[in-house]
């Protein structure tokens, strides 16, 4: 009877975060994915440590380069180690991640913005001391 009854399979196509495939048959492909991820992450790390210490590049560009490399390496870890994809079976995982990233940027960016603004508007410390006399 239930074969003919229409079924709404809400989560039948989902994959848990960390799983590459739902059926678990992933040994050979899985190993290749981890190897590619490891190679890419190593490459980005080496470049980051090299750039941080080199004198070959224009110095003010170094912090931005390091920031971009860090974001890239986090992306490599998410894709090749945690197996987050853009596929329909990962929608829930991606949305949770997007919300987490939003909060992280709000907390860090907001703190830096507010604190630098306060710092900028605060009276220099020697003048403050003189007023208290």
């Amino acid at each position: 009877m239930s074969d003919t009854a229409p079924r709404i399979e809400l989560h039948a196509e989902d994959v848990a975060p960390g799983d590459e495939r739902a059926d678990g048959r992933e040994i050979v492909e899985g190993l290749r994915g981890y190897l590619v991820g490891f190679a890419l992450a190593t490459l980005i790390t080496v470049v980051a440590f090299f750039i941080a210490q080199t004198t070959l590049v224009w110095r003010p560009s170094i912090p931005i380069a390091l920031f971009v490399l860090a974001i890239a390496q986090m992306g490599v870890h998410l894709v090749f180690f945690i197996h987050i994809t853009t596929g329909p079976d990962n929608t829930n995982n991606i949305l949770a991640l997007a919300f987490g990233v939003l909060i992280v940027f709000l907390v860090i960016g907001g703190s830096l913005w507010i604190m630098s603004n306060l710092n900028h508007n605060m009276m220099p410390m020697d003048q403050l001391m003189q007023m208290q006399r």
Partner: protein
Amino acid sequence: MSATHPGAAFSDPNLVGTGGAAGRRPAVSHAARNLASKRIIAGYGFWIFLLSDIVMFSAFFAAYAVLSGETAGGPSGKDLFDLTNVAIETGCLLLSSFTCGIASIGARAHHALMYYGGMAVTFLFGAIFLFLEMHEFAGMIAQGAGPTRSAFLSAFFTLVGCHGLHVTLGLLWLLTMMAQVFAKGFRADILRRVLCFSLFWHALDIIWVALFTIVYLYGAGQ
């Protein structure tokens, strides 16, 4: 039965109200087909926890970023940080993340050698990382640059120490998972815990990427 209620599956897809009463179709097995597997629920729940953990780390990162210049006349990051040590630490954590992935493949394939070998190597590299970090902390405290020296050092020890605490807990969890698989085998409930552990370990490596960039590479370059 379904001839009399052709739309039952639409109006009540999980058959919440049927309760498996006598004469009805088996409600539980039908409902189980409509719900996500326990592996997905456990993994997703742990993923939410990890993201909230990362949000907590973002508060420590914000505090560090605000306070990184406030050295109170004491040593700055440029005087204290040894990038060679940090590079070795980074390599250890990256290798352990890779071997943790191998261990999780072994767990899903019920391949004992791959699982135990991967977990053992993961533990080894995690322990080397922790030892190097302890060594660095001890050296800094010995030269008078402990967490009470300046706001910069308070924020540094809080942020890096919190990550180190996570690695310590992760190592204890790792040993627990090896023991549980050894005692109970590759059961579905144990494999869910292995999945959560591997997510935790990979997330720690992601936090370390932000940490070595913002704390060590920025700090040493200033």
